[in-house]
């Protein structure tokens, strides 16, 4: 079941680089939300900006949800200006493709940049069910965020920066490759990173779930906007999933990215 709710903003904090964390009160959405799902947020009651903003869920609590977003344009700019106590119109929980939470020996969590946020709830739910090795990659020291939150829940945490200004120098995937082979990889981040992870996972025959994004209209599966190529379909005869409906989390072997 999906809901449209007017959610009160309970807590708001500025992380860094125009990244904000919001905690909202939501009885219905929080009750049904799963790790990997997202919200469609209406930032204004006016028709400008027109569309909702799809934002992934960071953390699910009993009657609250936390989401984290970076100010990228006018929509997120308006959202960032909301004050505690304000009501925010939200659709959710959206998406049918979610992280597969169950018992494993080892799970590798790998995120890049603001792509680390959709992974947090999965880590929370996997705690106690698996050994969690987490690899988080950032551009440089200035961008490193939420280290402590992931550290508390992970058996091992490696932070990498492209320039070595914090943690290990290099890409997160390079450190994943050095470690024990996990039962499953759960990943979210920039496209080049996801492509490399997909390639590695398939070569090594590791099950891999990736969280994707694409320009989205409705978030409900009605407009068919957020298309992503199905694996095995060709340029001549392409076939598509939709990120909002089949995703946002896909098994890497099901998509062509």
């Amino acid at each position, binding site marked *: *079941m*999906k*809901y*449209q709710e007017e959610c009160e903003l309970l807590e708001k904090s500025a992380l860094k680089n125009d990244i904000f964390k919001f905690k909202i009160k939501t009885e219905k959405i929080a009750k049904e939300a799963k790790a990997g799902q997202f919200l469609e947020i*209406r930032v204004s009651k006016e*028709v*400008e*900006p*027109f*569309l*909702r903003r799809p934002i992934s869920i960071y953390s699910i609590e009993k009657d609250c949800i936390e989401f984290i977003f970076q100010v990228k344009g006018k*929509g997120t700019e308006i959202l960032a200006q909301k004050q505690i106590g304000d009501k925010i119109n939200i*659709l959710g929980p959206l998406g049918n493709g979610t992280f597969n939470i169950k018992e494993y020996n080892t799970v590798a969590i790998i995120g890049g940049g603001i792509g680390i946020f959709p992974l947090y709830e999965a880590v929370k739910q996997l705690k106690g069910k698996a050994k969690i090795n987490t690899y988080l990659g950032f551009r440089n020291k200035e961008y490193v965020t939420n280290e402590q939150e992931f550290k508390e829940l992970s058996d091992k945490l490696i932070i990498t920066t492209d320039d070595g200004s914090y943690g290990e120098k290099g890409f997160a995937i390079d450190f994943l490759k050095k470690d024990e082979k996990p039962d499953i990889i759960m990943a979210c981040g920039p496209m080049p990173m996801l492509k490399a992870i997909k390639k590695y996972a398939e070569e090594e025959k590791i099950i891999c779930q990736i969280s994707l994004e*694409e*320009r*989205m*209209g*409705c978030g*409900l*599966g*009605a*407009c*068919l*906007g*957020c*298309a*992503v190529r199905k694996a095995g*379909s060709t340029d001549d*005869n*392409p*076939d*598509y999933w939709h990120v909002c409906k089949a995703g946002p989390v896909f098994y890497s072997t099901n998509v062509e990215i």
Partner: protein
Amino acid sequence: MNTNINFAGIKMKNPVTVASGTFGYGREYEDFIDLNKLGAIITKGTSLKPRSGNKAPRVCETSSGMLNSIGLQNPGIEYFAKIDLPYLKRFDTKIIVNACGSTVEEYVELCKILNTLDIDGVELNLSCPNVKAGCLAFGTTYEGVKNVTSQVRKVLDKPLIVKLTPNVTDITQTAKGAEDAGADAISAINTLLGMKIDINKRTPILANNTGGLSGPAIKPVAVRCVYQIAKTVKIPVMGLGGIMNGEDAIEFMIAGATTVSIGAGNFVDPECSIKTIQEIEKYMQKHQIEDINSIIGSIKMN
């Protein structure tokens, strides 16, 4: 207070429908609204064979609206008849299938099948701007519209609505083409062809380069088109283009629309159609209007 409308022989409980391509085949909205309350559901554009659609990005936001270039992705008429129609028939609303094709022959074949299905009407899509063949190719001239509409008319006994594009010099000509070919109604407008460029990459945002503009940005164009069409033809008009609420819907009806359709508004608020129905009723109460039919075409020109 009466909100019943007879639209080209389709008896609707109110004038509010949901526009093709913005409502799937209904399922996506069942969590949010009671589909029984809608005047009619117009399905996603459906073709003879399944279509996979265009490459992504397929949508992007623009000022007070959005561009789309979906490319008529749909599962085909066979799948619709087997899976989607039985679902839609569970609801007490009217079902209108938006029909699209690449050739006149395809439109005819499709409508032969539609004629056998338990649906209330067909909306002939002669106005999708996002596919290479068909649709818009037939939809921009009097002769083009008249030809394909008359071929379809021969095989279709059900109410036939022709959906027109605003991407023409004179929309009354294409409306006349539909009427002369025996169409029962017109729907207007489909999207306006547009483009948005990423100024950093200097490339269009949509993979297909251009797309159809919808949303409140196009509403004044749509109201003008509906007014012109309603003045020109005798068959009824379904008005759409940027309707977000009851006031917008009333504006279209005053301009001459018998029914209205909520399009991109469904994306912003999945309850938009139901709220529009409620707001129309409020307007009627406020202005002591007994019958919704009395406001159709009630415009007083300056």
